[in-house]
């Protein structure tokens, strides 16, 4: 359980970084940048949970 929570937090952080860098590279507007970043962060957090539950 603790491992999964840690995995979710790490996934969220990684997702925020990927989303922020990616949307910066694409050159999105600041309003859409935050939405896409948060969506990617959620997806990465969920992937982190799935990976932790499989391991």
């Amino acid at each position, binding site marked *: 359980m603790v491992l999964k929570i840690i995995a979710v937090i790490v996934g969220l952080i990684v997702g925020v970084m990927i989303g922020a860098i990616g949307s910066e590279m694409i050159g999105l507007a600041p309003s859409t940048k935050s939405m896409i970043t948060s*969506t990617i962060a959620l*997806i990465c957090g969920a992937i982190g949970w*799935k990976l932790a539950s499989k391991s």
Partner: protein
Amino acid sequence: MPFLYIAAAAALVGLIPMPYFGYTLVKFFVTAACLIAVFTMPRKMLWGVSSNIWLVSIAVLYNPIFPIFLNRELWMVIDLLVVLILFFIGTAPADPDAKIVTPKVRSNENQSSSTTRTEKSKLKTNESISVNDIAKKIEEKGDSFSNNVIIYGLVILVIFGLITFSMR
């Protein structure tokens, strides 16, 4: 129950463009209505999570004392999500198994006669079993929720991408 719909209506009002004071009022109404609903409403389950947790989370998100600063677009998305969640909580049936499994405390008569160490250890094992059950339930629900988040997140991402590139 009406407090849920008051909170939902207040969250919908938050979609309308208005001065900052208006948003503070909206936050105040949503927080107050959610907190009153926690104490007045029968407990329900929404997607495996207690309605009390949903309502307290919404109250924390909207609290006007320590405001959370997000941009306008994100608040609009949150407003819509909150309205949907409150609507689902309002329509969900009351959960009959919502009572927390806690070890029953014996009456005074029985306690005076036989409060031995074995009974205390039994109570402790009951407690640990219920905690383990709750943890297992959380993990099971988390697994299904993570699946949904991945699928719907990718769909939302594709929609955002299409909208962004069609706007250019």
